[in-house]
């Protein structure tokens, strides 16, 4: 197989890079994706907050991915799923500038693709517990936050019921809310630094909204429970980040989630002899995002871990365009647009008084100061746009949120859906014969509230989703439940499911 551009990875970076290359006139493209679907990690990021920069509207992860996937389909850009690139090398033929990729999948076995240009978009992975070297037992119940996210959001299963989260990275914060809405008790989020590395709006929406304590300047120093986690010992740390004697505290829990950072996944990149930057853990690239000056580009989280997906897309657009220019011999490496930096980290520090507020309308997270005037009007400062003013007023009078969750999805071919979801679960998995026949449980469907709902009703609305029974096929935007918990707001699907 011979391709102009091969894009390794069908997540947000790969999809945007492919579309960008296509828009810049390259048609002979192939995207290789090792998962069974396009979209990458966005598929399990069912929460909202994506797309504010790219689409000027707030989307969930699956919706954001869907917009790109739809365009990939519309333009008929080829991709192969369940296919892993196992090796990449430069053509040994001195007259050729091709790169040779070895690909493996179930259908074709091993095969090679010759590519004139390659865009590396393999993303990143989570740093595991081992990297933290937390002492203690190694029983069941210790997960990375992303693994827990996959279990809850894709498989509809709970990794535990009483949770302590280590590290206040965004995935950890998101999972604190997610597991709370699914009925778990999140005991604490433990962060070793005196500030959180997560976005401010996630602190507000995921912890503060649910009264989950954020223990800054603390760390887990021992994990108890031989077969299953039974608790953790948490201690405060000093300025050298060493545990302070006497500050130990035992927290009972059955689950420990680690959200301690992400590492770019550069096994393949190394095979090309690329130099890995010690700071970013991604390859060193030139201004055009090229690792070698020979037509291999890198973009997205494989290059450096981005704060938000919108910037991944933007960087990938640059990579796609640069690859197209390279193929036409027009790439101006000195003046190319490439690397997209993350925004300056807007870290959350404690001790802010009540009249301070973090705007959650976009990832900027403006620090608002709200003063209640004598005539009971509000004076708002610190906002960079009018949305901040509106948000502050809303937050002080009637705070609202978008609910994101999942509902169980059934394959209707097994029978008619009758009965409560409770029964459906039992019947679907255990095959209990005295129950009404139901379709086979096939996983989850991600959903959201079409409009924002009053903050205090979030839990009621989430609980109302218990009884929803959905059968495939479903399209993005389909109404799943009307007028959830009497709020007048509909719950709609944020991903599509075909049979």
């Amino acid at each position, binding site marked *: 197989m011979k391709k102009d551009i091969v894009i390794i990875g069908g997540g947000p970076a790969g999809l945007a890079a492919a579309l960008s290359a296509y828009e810049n006139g390259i048609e002979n493209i192939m995207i290789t994706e090792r998962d069974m679907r396009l979209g990458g990690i966005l598929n399990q990021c069912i929460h909202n907050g994506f797309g504010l920069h790219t689409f000027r509207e707030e989307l969930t992860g699956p919706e954001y991915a869907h917009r790109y996937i739809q365009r990939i389909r519309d333009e008929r850009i080829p991709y192969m799923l369940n296919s892993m690139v196992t090796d990449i090398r430069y053509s040994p033929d001195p007259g050729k500038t091709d790169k040779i990729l070895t690909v*493996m999948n179930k259908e074709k076995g*091993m095969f090679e693709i010759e590519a004139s240009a390659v865009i590396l978009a393999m993303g990143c992975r989570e740093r595991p517990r081992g990297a933290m070297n937390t*002492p203690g037992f190694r029983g069941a119940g210790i997960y*990375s936050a992303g693994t827990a996210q996959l279990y809850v959001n894709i498989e*509809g299963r709970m990794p535990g019921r009483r949770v302590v989260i280590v590290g206040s990275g965004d995935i950890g914060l998101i999972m604190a809310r997610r597991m709370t809405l699914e009925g778990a008790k999140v005991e604490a989020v433990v962060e070793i630094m005196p500030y959180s590395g997560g976005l401010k709006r996630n602190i507000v929406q995921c912890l503060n909204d649910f009264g989950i304590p954020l223990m800054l300047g603390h760390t887990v120093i021992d994990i108890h429970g031989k077969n299953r986690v039974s608790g953790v010992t948490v201690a405060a740390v000093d300025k050298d980040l060493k545990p302070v004697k006497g500050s130990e505290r035992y927290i009972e829990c059955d689950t420990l989630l680690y959200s301690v950072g992400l590492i770019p996944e550069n096994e393949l990149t190394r095979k090309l002899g690329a130099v890995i930057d010690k700071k970013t853990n991604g390859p060193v690239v030139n201004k055009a995002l090229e690792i070698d000056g020979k037509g291999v580009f890198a973009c997205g989280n494989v290059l450096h871990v981005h704060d938000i997906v919108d910037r991944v897309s933007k960087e990938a657009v640059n990579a796609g365009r640069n690859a197209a220019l390279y193929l036409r011999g027009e790439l101006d490496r000195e003046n190319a647009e490439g690397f997209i930096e993350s925004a300056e980290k807007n870290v959350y520090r404690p001790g802010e008084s009540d009249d301070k507020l973090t705007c959650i309308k976009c990832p900027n997270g403006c620090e608002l100061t709200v003063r209640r005037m004598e005539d009971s009007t509000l004076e708002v400062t610190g906002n960079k746009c009018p949305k901040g003013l509106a948000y502050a007023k809303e937050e002080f009078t009637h705070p609202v949120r978008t609910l994101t969750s999942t509902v169980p999805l059934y394959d209707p071919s097994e029978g008619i859906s009758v009965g409560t979801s409770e029964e459906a679960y039992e019947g679907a998995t255990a095959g209990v014969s005295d129950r009404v026949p139901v379709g086979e449980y096939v996983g989850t469907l991600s959903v959201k509230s079409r409009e924002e709902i009053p903050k205090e009703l979030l839990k009621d609305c989430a609980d109302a989703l218990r009884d929803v029974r959905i059968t495939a096929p479903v399209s993005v935007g389909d109404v799943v439940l009307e007028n959830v918990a009497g709020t007048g707001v509909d719950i709609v699907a944020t991903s599509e499911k075909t049979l």
Partner: protein
Amino acid sequence: MTDVIIIGAGITGSCIARELSRQKRKILVLEKASDVCEGTSKANSGIIHGGYDAKPGTLKARLNVMGSMMMEDLSRELDFPYIRNGSLVLAPEGSDMGRLDELLERGIKNGVKGLRIVDREELKYLEPNVNDRIEAALYVPSGAIADPFLMTVAMAENAAVNGVDFSFGEEVIDIERTDSGYRVITTDSVYESGYVINAAGVYADKIHGMVSKDPMEIVPVRGQYCLFDNELSGLVKHTLFKLPTEKGKGILVTPTAHGNIMAGPTAETLEDKEAVNTTAEGIATVLKEGALSVKELPERKVITSFSGLRAHEVSGDFIIREASDARGFIDVAGIESPGLSAAPAIAEYVSDILNKLEPSEYRTDHISKREGIPVMSKASYEERQRLIKEDPLFGNVICRCEFVTEGEIVRAINRPLGATTLDGVKRRVRAGMGRCQGGFCSPRVVEILARELSKDPGEIRKNDPGSELLAGYNKKI
């Protein structure tokens, strides 16, 4: 009624089971854990010692050298990873070089071949990343490394293929004497057997005490380890020991049979035989002392840490004999380092004891060869192509870090004594052993286990009962 009951399916019990399976005996192995290799056998250095270290004349010395010499052939016969990488015992500047000579002489007395002392220059050539402070070393070319999980699995599996029964999740709670031997009472059943072999690791003294008044005391001595990312693969080629001091053998740095770098173990005498936890002090010791042997041991590249308990018998040597006051009850106790190296020789030794007590005919239909699961990560392009053609599941990568496919996982589950747990899969085919430590693959492995074993994913465990990985469906409390 069985002829022989073996208590414990660690490396010792599994090797004995395999050795005895050559004979016409009815054999049952009782294991309280859910799988083979769940105690000390899963958490040790994985080193096949040359045999220079043990005191001449001891069982440890004799069986170590014998076992070490058997190992390479065994690794081929039973298809488990074994690499003769050689060991170096490092003497830093200012240390007593006389001790290095003592070790050399001891090794020669024990019958270890090829030993010699190398100077700084040769050492640098043999091991370029050795710490600059090291002045000389004892070179042990026969030193090797093996995969202790796969070695145990291979032994047990081969025993099972040859008719040995294994029963898991059964803890022996009492043993009574009968006219024809022993009645072994477990948490689940009662078994009668002519002979009992006690290979119960740290609990061997407890099992021994059920029938014998001979003194025996097993003290658990914990060893903590750190395992490093395979990015560091090649950092050291040999197993780097420290020159032993009064305080003990010290922290070694070694490649594993799969190319990771490992450092450890600590040596902490404990009372609790379940204390397989790691501690902040232990990990710090491993990292600090390990760094003295090499130029750099980057802490950031640790992917996991773990602990094992050495089954130390207070007399200091292996105890392998029929109890003086219990006919037909054979102890195989105190099997600490070099237990892994000695295990095949221990098995032959036990077989001899048993044959003296009651000779048995040898089977003519014994199958001594075992073929392991194909390893896709090590296969060539053509082998991969062929495997996927035979079974497309070999084309589906589940563990990205270690490049483990669905085909390998399905085989790990469906073989004799196959994996039933996440850890069982991990130890057989390495899914989840890599740098993300199962972050990506464990949900998929759980799904495959559930499918192959016709269970609900909620029933799948990490290892023993109580280690279920999931807590029901969303929203259900």
